[in-house]
């Protein structure tokens, strides 16, 4: 194993390609990525609303700008100008910290997602990228727990409890499924995982793992049919019942950023990430982002689609599905992968 903090090495490589100091390169990458993320997240909201409207015989928001393209702007302005209220019975500092945590954790994870083979297409090409992602998504649970707890309201508390149980359970099967991928690729770096799929996508080599991962990812994002922590009909808005204005918007945005993140991880781990055939007349540097974002878009559509289709699971069934089916299957998947990797090493890509 090399240096765990391979960030500097990657930035070093990036700065070797560009005649700039490493820190400036990293800052540039972050600025570009954040700008992109906010824009895409805002438009994901619009797309979700339009797609769901389309699935439901409705029109959806189409008044602000052509085809409703300015709707995200209107939404943001509305949320920004709404009254910011912190109920008097809350635990003030935790109440404020909760939405910040979810924003930070879901955005930070993007640092390890490679947008292309070139060194400057990833902010931090860590050799423990997978672990970094898993660690941050575990930290994300704190946001929900703290929001539920600090709100000091019964609905929020129930939502927070539900979220804790759900995310911890599904984290496990998600990690186990992702570990099988890492095992097959022989690396914990996302770049390495993508490169290992040059010949064949892991979705074909790991169909079971893929299904487990996909289900866990939907559960992890707390979206329908796993939206129990914020089940509107049961517990009003769950953990964010007491939130308003920009603090609510941060939960909202955090949810969409994490949907995008999880879609990117699914694309990276199972659908060859930034890989794809050459596109004529497009500079090769842009091919990676186009492919990754394209795959992400399809997966986001999948998220939206199931949200419009399925009823919500019940709490005990959710736990059952997680612990009785997904975790054992994920363990099995991991063991089988390990055995095959040892027995038939030529199938796996040698660690670089």
């Amino acid at each position: 194993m090399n240096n765990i903090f391979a960030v500097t090495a990657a930035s070093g490589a990036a700065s070797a390609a560009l005649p700039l100091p490493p820190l400036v390169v990293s800052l540039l990458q972050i600025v570009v990525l954040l700008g992109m993320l906010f824009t895409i997240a805002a438009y994901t909201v619009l797309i979700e609303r339009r797609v769901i409207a389309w699935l439901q015989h409705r029109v959806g928001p189409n008044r602000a700008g052509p085809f409703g393209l300015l709707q995200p702007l209107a939404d943001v302005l509305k949320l920004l100008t709404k009254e910011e209220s912190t109920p008097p019975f809350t635990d003030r500092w935790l109440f404020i910290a909760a939405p910040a945590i979810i924003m930070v954790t879901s955005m930070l994870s993007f640092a390890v997602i490679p947008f292309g083979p070139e060194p400057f297409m990833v902010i931090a090409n860590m050799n423990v990228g997978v672990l970094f992602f898993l660690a941050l998504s575990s930290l994300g649970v704190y946001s929900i727990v703290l929001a539920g707890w600090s709100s000091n309201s019964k609905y929020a508390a129930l939502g927070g409890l539900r979220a804790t149980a759900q995310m911890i359970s599904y984290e496990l099967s998600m990690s186990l499924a992702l570990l099988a991928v890492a095992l097959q690729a022989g690396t914990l770096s996302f770049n390495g995982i993508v490169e290992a799929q040059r010949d064949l996508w892991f979705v074909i080599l790991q169909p079971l793992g893929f299904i487990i991962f996909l289900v866990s990812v939907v559960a992890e994002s707390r979206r329908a049919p796993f939206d129990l922590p914020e089940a509107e009909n049961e517990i009003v808005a769950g953990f964010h019942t007491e939130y308003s204005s920009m603090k609510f918007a941060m939960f909202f945005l955090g949810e969409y950023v994490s949907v995008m993140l999880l879609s990117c991880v699914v694309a990276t781990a199972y659908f060859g990430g930034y890989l794809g055939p050459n596109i004529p007349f497009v500079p090769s540097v842009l091919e990676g982002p186009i492919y990754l974002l394209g795959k992400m878009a399809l997966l986001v559509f999948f998220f939206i689609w199931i949200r419009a289709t399925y009823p919500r699971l019940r709490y005990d069934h959710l736990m059952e599905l997680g612990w009785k089916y997904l975790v054992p299957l994920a363990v099995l998947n991991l063991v089988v992968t390990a055995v095959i990797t040892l027995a038939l090493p030529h199938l796996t890509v040698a660690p670089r």
Partner: protein
Amino acid sequence: MKFSRTVETPVWESGTTNVLKGERGILGVEEVRWVDADRVTETICQLKTDPKRPFPMLFDLTAIDESERRHRPEGETHRFTVQYHLFSPQRGESLLVKVAVPDGATGIESISNIYKNANYYEREVFDMFGVSFHGHPNMRRILMPDWWTGHPLRKDHPNRATEMPPLVITEEDLKEFDGWEQLSSGDSYIRTRNEAGEELLILNLGPNHPGTHGVLRVVLTLNGEYMEDVYPVIGYHHRGAEKMAERQTWHTYIPYTDRVDYLAGTYNELPYVLACEQLAGIRVPERATVMRVLLGEIYRICNHLVWFGTFGHDVGAMTPVFYSFRERENLFKIIEMITGGRMHPNFLRIGGCSMDLPPGWQEPIRLFLKDFDKNLLEYEQLLLGNPILKSRTVGVGVMSGDECVEWGVTGPNLRASGVQFDLRKVKPYCGYEGFEFEIPYETGGDCYSRAVVRHREMKQSARIIEQCLRLMPEGEVMSRDNRYAFPPRKAETMMDIEALINHFLAVGWGLDLPVGESVAMVEQPKGIAGYYAVSDGRTSPYRLRIRTPSFAAIQTLPALCRGHLLSDLLAVIGAMDYVLADIDR
């Protein structure tokens, strides 16, 4: 079928022969028994378990304040008549037990240990009339707030807010209104600890909550997410529909009935006008009857479509509601074409319908029916066949057929428990015996069965509509008995002085239906509704009792939910299909 004057009884002779002053015959029930107040529990117990002629269902329990009644037998002085409407689903037979109660304080024995559902009904009578029931487990107000003074349905209680002194709510009242006073006090009816001594979480769900379909408040005591106790608190939607009837004329009350079960449209007006027509003793032309069936079944589908969407929404599926509302919109266009209204059509009249069908009315209905089977299949694929939905509803909120009867639950909820009972078959009205349709039923008794029954009922209603299209008779839509049915035909008012006088009186003064009492029961989309109309020979009802299916259904909520998860409460509520206006009236 053509009506002509020569065939019909002359208008000035019909009608009044039904119930004469002082007689105790009541129209629409098979038998009436007056029982002494001290023998009421005994008699009712006997009637319930009578081996030859049992009445397993307490259909309704209500009271009448007799203090201002003009037409009473000589020497009758009691203030209240408490009446028990017993019903046998097997035979479709009703028995009315009437008990004279001298005054409210004296009260009467409770029968809540004989019929389970008497609990809420007795509370309602206590609330509305101040008649107390001895031995009742929880003799509190039910529709009015606890701090209310007076009993609204007593004749001496003002009708309008302007007749009352200014309403003053003290801090104490507010606390009680909030419910917290009761929670913290020692004699609370809500437990805060369970048998094991664990502290329970009290969750106040509603009255403003996205999942309760209106202003229903449910106080839950939760152990984790398991519901140990469920207390529905109703009355937030109470508008005094029964009291309002006592101020409106017989005719002008029709639009108010629309608002009782606001999803059932003409099916609310139907039992009311049937009760009035029974009192007046008039016949409704065949075309009007078939039109009533046609509109009623359209509204039944409308109601079930709303149910389908909200049920899906309650279990967390966001899309079904848009699919079902698409069809509902088409139906509303048809209803609008026929009646001019949508949810509140105000279309039926005493003696017929307000107007004839518009030219070309068949075509839109035919178009709707053409696609409806396909749409029903779509619903099944979208929601009812979904494994997540099945896992959420199969075996949840189970109630056996006998229990349903015991609780007075009717309609699809009863049929889902394996009882193939439908008033349209057992005791047909409006010529339902002439239509071909089946009574769908399921044996599961759970939320899923309730959903399946409603889904299949839509198909049967479509069948009835299709037959209405084929069989719609020609003729008039309003009875010619223009003493009680108006407006008379224009030509008649010009040529016939009687018709002109009747019209003038009916519109300027109000109908005065013959003295008597009459019950009409119909199978509404949500179950059996019964309107009990008392005429004292005035232009407005002396008392109008509205027995609704939702009131009976909501009472079963604790029995259905106890021990289940919080999420199941929503599945049960969704599958139960009630509307708050129908519960609180």
